[in-house]
């Protein structure tokens, strides 16, 4: 029936939500976790996002936009829960030369383990963390990231460039710190105090 196709999402049987939830809840959770950094908060954000879709998603006429809409909604819900990082304005205004990655030697990327990457990502300033997380989830193009975060495409590129530089530095630091914690202790035990 035509009327059924236009019915409000909330009036549909629950099993009609299943394909949508299955398609997106994992990526949404990963994005939420990278923002909130706590599993419970990330789960809340994902549930709230789907609830909002169920109550307001009927206004979305273009089905191709559902994915971007969900990420946008989750990000807005996250921002609603906290104040924006006040440093974002001056970071955006930095000249392109200041946004170039450093040329410091860094470990081979293949040697990074997942925990190290997640720990480094969680330390990135939020203004970079949101676009970086969406970029590394690989679900959205940079144009869709711009739409999801409601920022210009050029700003997405700028934040990715600057954010990757910061991430690379953090990973290098954490990698060497991890190495240092392993080596000195046996040396002290064996040789005693100098």
């Amino acid at each position, binding site marked *: 029936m035509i009327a059924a196709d236009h019915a409000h999402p909330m009036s549909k049987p629950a099993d009609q939500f299943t394909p949508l939830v299955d398609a997106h809840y994992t990526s949404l959770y990963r994005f939420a976790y990278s923002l909130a950094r706590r599993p419970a908060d990330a789960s809340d954000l994902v549930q709230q996002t789907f609830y909002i879709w169920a*109550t307001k998603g009927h206004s979305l006429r273009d089905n191709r936009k559902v994915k971007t809409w969900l990420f946008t909604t989750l990000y807005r819900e996250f921002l609603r829960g906290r104040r924006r990082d006040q440093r974002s304005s001056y970071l955006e205004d930095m000249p392109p030369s200041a946004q170039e990655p450093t040329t410091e030697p860094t470990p081979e990327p293949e040697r990074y383990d997942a925990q190290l990457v997640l720990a480094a990502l969680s330390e990135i300033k939020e203004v970079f963390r949101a676009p970086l997380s969406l970029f590394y989830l690989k679900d959205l193009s940079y144009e869709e990231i711009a739409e999801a975060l409601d920022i210009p495409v050029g700003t997405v*590129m700028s934040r990715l460039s600057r954010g990757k530089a910061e991430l690379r530095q953090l990973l290098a630091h954490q990698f060497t710190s991890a190495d240092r914690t392993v080596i000195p202790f046996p040396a002290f035990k064996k040789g005693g105090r100098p």
Partner: protein
Amino acid sequence: MNNAEAKFILHARRPNGADDQHPTMRPALDHAQRDPELAAWLAAQTRFDTAVAAGLQTITPPADLRAMILTGLAAQPAPRAWWRSPAMLGLAAALAVACLLGAFGVVRWQTAPTTPTWVASPQLNALRDLARHETQGMHAAGVKAMMLGEFGRWLETPGQRLTVGLPLDFAALHKIGCRTLNVAGLDVIEICFQRDQQYHLYIARRSDFSTPGKSRPPTFAQQDGISTAEWMHGDLICLVTTAGDSAALKQIL
């Protein structure tokens, strides 16, 4: 495109190659194929991105999250129809009252004031000076069209006339990535675009001028080897410049 510009774009290239055919990404990738230094940088960047993306993929949702989402959605009551909400009923009542008052002539529609004639403006002169300096290569603050997606491609399409179909929404231009310069108190958007030669386009809001003028067709001028054309388009004052005589400008307007 130089290496710095290519790197800036390639930072947004997903390591799985999903963006490789994008009109903005393709020229940067082609440039990397021709430049060994850039190619090496891109290979290292892709390895780094692949490693980080793999780390993010290890985040696993709680086992019960999916069930909680679906159960929560099924448990929610259907919302009230929009036309039965108190807000919509209030709005309908307000409209009814407004129509009633209008019928009795209480509500009068104010006509827009006629716009004054175009006059020489210190702000416009400052904008003209800036445009000439930029076109002479003395400064480069503008955003390149290739960074502006569909609108940028439209600007660089041969034969496309700027006076026909130029977006009129200043806010929309901001949203797609245009930056604002402050010129004598005016917010001015600057975009550099390339066709057979390079052009600089400046867009300001007419309402921001202390002495706004009325709409008129493009007028051309030439000074110090730089040609300019100015015209009004709705609430926008547009100025485009290029090196050489005004023949090239007349072709794109």
